[in-house]
């Protein structure tokens, strides 16, 4: 598939989009939108010393939505011809039952300059270079220790060109290139087997590996697996927890980020409903969602509703300042979107989603925080987690953790979950360090997955329940 040099806003001709929007509003309707996507992706998987699979694919299509009062109609098609788009518009408009909306003309105008991708495009990189990355990672993991018995690694890239046109006259396009890499090692010892993983993911092209060598990630994953061979079971009970900078950000993504999404707020299914202006966290806590933050995994130029990404302060010095908004929820409240309308693909409706969510650094020294913790847990890497936004209860997996004894990091611990309540944990943060790191992740909501970044400085929570099996 040859790279296309046309701008994303030209994926479908503007007069065709105008006719499709007119068709979508033919039966009456307050708002109509066409979202067009052309996505190419490739992935390579190495396992057991073999490059098992090279895979590539292409998806092109459009999703059309029509909003009538409180109701949204949605249809999508892989047929980007005018006939295909008109037929999807007709299906989406079926929710406007009253009929007789009359003719409403839509004149589109470009709202923002189209984003021209400057990254090295994935299809201009030889496949053999991508394969080579994985072989290098395999070597690096295996030479990190003889206990490493199995290595798997994956590479993936995507180029996603999108176009958004709506009945307010908006016409915007984006060209997104993302690249990711992961490695998982299995180490074997007397006490059984343990695993360790590491991933790299940026909104960048292949050149990201110049700054982020796969060997480093591969060694890190191997060390994690090997060190856990000597790990003892995690304790059971409530203990102080020091979260190392980086992946601990996912805890705040889950524990409060989701509860600050306006769709949950408007349905009164969040613990944060009606709490703007109130103290919801320790005074040192400032939480930000920022779709413009560097080349991080959740970075966007525009969101999937054509709105420029922006920096939104959600909690400032412990006080709840605002929620995150997409077009639909902002419209209900008579305000503008905060650039958080995202969707997995043209086959999905947009909803309120996070981008890069992080806690700002404080002033404490990270080593001092550990030194001043007589007994507790040091979490160096968090895995996935889950939250119930209505109650704030969350769980999280610790994939690299250690005991803190007498102010020192001591023995490694086997994997276990920690469990807590979002508002409760936010109020129990008593130390925030002056370091900071972002980590990539995939966020799932209502069946849709999107790329997000999370970050945080090293910090301490005075008590979280650790779900291990040993007496605390």
């Amino acid at each position, binding site marked *: 598939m040859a790279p296309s040099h046309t701008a994303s806003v030209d994926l479908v001709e503007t007069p065709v989009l105008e006719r499709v929007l007119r068709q979508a509003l033919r039966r009456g309707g307050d708002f109509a939108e066409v979202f067009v996507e052309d996505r190419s992706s490739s992935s390579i998987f190495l396992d057991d010393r*073999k490059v098992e699979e090279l895979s*590539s694919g292409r998806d092109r299509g459009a999703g059309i939505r029509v909003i009538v009062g409180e109701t949204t109609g949605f249809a999508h098609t*892989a047929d980007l011809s005018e006939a295909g788009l008109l037929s999807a518009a007709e299906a989406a408009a079926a929710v406007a039952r009253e009929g007789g909306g009359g003719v409403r003309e839509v004149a589109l105008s470009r709202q923002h300059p189209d984003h021209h991708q400057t990254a090295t495009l994935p299809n201009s990189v030889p496949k053999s270079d991508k394969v080579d990355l994985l072989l290098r990672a395999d070597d690096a993991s295996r030479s990190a220790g003889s206990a490493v018995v*199995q290595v798997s690694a994956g590479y993936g890239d995507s180029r996603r060109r999108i176009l958004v046109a709506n009945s307010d006259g908006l016409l915007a396009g984006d060209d997104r290139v993302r690249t990711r890499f992961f490695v998982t090692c299995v180490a*074997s010892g007397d006490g059984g087997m343990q695993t360790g993983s590491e991933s790299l993911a940026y909104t960048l092209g292949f050149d990201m590996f110049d700054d982020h060598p796969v060997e480093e990630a591969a060694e890190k994953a191997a060390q994690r697996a090997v060190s856990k061979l000597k790990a003892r079971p995690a304790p059971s009970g409530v203990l102080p927890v020091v979260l190392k900078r980086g992946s601990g950000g996912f805890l705040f993504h889950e524990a409060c980020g989701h509860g600050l999404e306006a769709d949950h707020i408007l349905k009164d*299914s969040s613990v944060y409903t009606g709490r703007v202006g109130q103290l919801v966290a320790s005074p040192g806590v400032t939480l930000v969602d920022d779709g413009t933050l560097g080349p991080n995994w959740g970075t966007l130029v525009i969101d999937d509703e054509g709105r420029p990404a922006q920096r939104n302060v959600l909690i400032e010095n412990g006080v709840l300042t605002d929620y995150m908004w997409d077009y639909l929820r902002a419209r209900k409240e008579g305000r503008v979107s905060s650039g958080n309308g995202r969707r997995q693909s043209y086959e999905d409706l947009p909803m309120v989603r996070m981008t890069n969510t992080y806690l700002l650094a404080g002033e404490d020294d990270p080593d001092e925080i550990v030194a001043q913790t007589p007994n507790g847990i040091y979490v160096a890497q968090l895995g996935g987690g889950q939250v119930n936004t209505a109650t704030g209860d969350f*769980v999280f997996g610790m994939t690299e953790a250690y005991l803190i004894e007498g102010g020192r990091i001591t023995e490694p611990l086997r994997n276990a979950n920690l469990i807590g309540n979002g508002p409760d944990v936010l109020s129990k943060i008593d130390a925030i360090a002056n370091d900071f790191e972002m980590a990539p992740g995939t966020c799932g909501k209502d069946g849709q997955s999107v790329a997000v970044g999370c970050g945080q400085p090293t910090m301490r929570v005075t008590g979280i329940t650790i779900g291990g099996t040993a007496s605390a």
Partner: protein
Amino acid sequence: MPDLLGLARRVLEEAKGDEEVEVYVAHGRETSIRVFEGEIEELTAAESAGVGVRVISAGRQGFSYVGTLEATAATEALVQARDNATFASIDEHAGLASPDGVEPPALDLWREELVSFLTDEKVALALELERRVRSGDPRIRQVVSSDYVDGYGETAIATSRGIEVSSRQTGCYLFVHAVAGDGDDTQTGFGYSVGRAPGDLDLEAAATDAVDRATRLLGAKKARSAKLTAVLDRRVTATLLGILSGTLSGEEVVKGRSLFAGRTGEKVGVDELTLVDDPTNPLAYGASQHDAEGLACRRNSLISNGELKGFLYNTYAARLAGTASTGSAVRGGFRTTPGVGAQALSLEPGKQDQAEIIAQVGEGFLVQSITGVHSGVNRVSGDFSVGAEGLMIRGGELAEPVREVTIASTIQRMLQHVVAVGSDIEWLPGAATGVTLAIDDIALSGS
């Protein structure tokens, strides 16, 4: 419906003599309705279709897909897959499935009734479900969403090894998410019902389930940490079986990534534990005539009276392990290559229902739901630690509600500590069946 097998054959004609080619074609339609406060919130009409092509040439495998049924694009996918293959490692075990003479089960998974069901009737079901939940208990404070979703799909597979199969099926479900409140306390509960046609759906059961699950947790508190017997509710057991199935994948076993590697024939669980994967059972929602490589589905015994009998294999894993495919190739649609997976796991039921098991256990914890399964269970080491909520069991009866605790053990230990398997089988969506399961020596972490 488009002629999927015809398209697959057409792409296959482009195969060269020295390569193996598999063409997988899928087409489906879905309608999804969400209501909120008596009105339609979202109505989605979706059609998706695509072609995935696998090429194996000189021991190297490549794959490519396109999200359309256009013949020229499908042929382009073959060209891309062929190019991708040239960069893969030579793998003597790479290969497509060969017809093995096993007859597919006679299953009819298609209900014309669903295809002709009117949109207004679908909306009416979702609205009625919302109404019943709202009026089900004065403490129901919100019905976040009430959904009716249905769909039908067809797949076809044609390969250069002579496999030519197609199959089609229908399915639908109701799903409701309720929030209960009492003073400052808030709890949530989900209810659902699944079927092959709208007539199979039990709206009342879905509504009652959501109301009960949300309200019975009101007032829940953290419990004290303790070692105890956990009684897993049916859906929790289904989740646990889903985890277990990953450890029974022949590919993970042969690659040394399963806690069961090298343990065939060993006693891994108590006598009462018998586990099969049986997609030939028409009651299972995972029932299917063919697996994702076009081989006939079959009944596979995994654990019999506590003894580990075998593992699940697709063609590649079987060749790696020096055995035959068990018809257990699964794929997540046309965009992926076949992996190995369970399709319809179930435990052989015992003799007691849930109430009898609770009475027998006497003191323990009824686990209503678990969270953090992906992060909290390690299929290699067997470590198990998940978030849980439910009700304490005291004197053989349900007592106070509990939240924000974890339960932990290892998979190995849990299988050896099963104290009762329920008689209350529930056929659920996904690859596993629900049944009440009691396990002792579980560490509950709370305050």
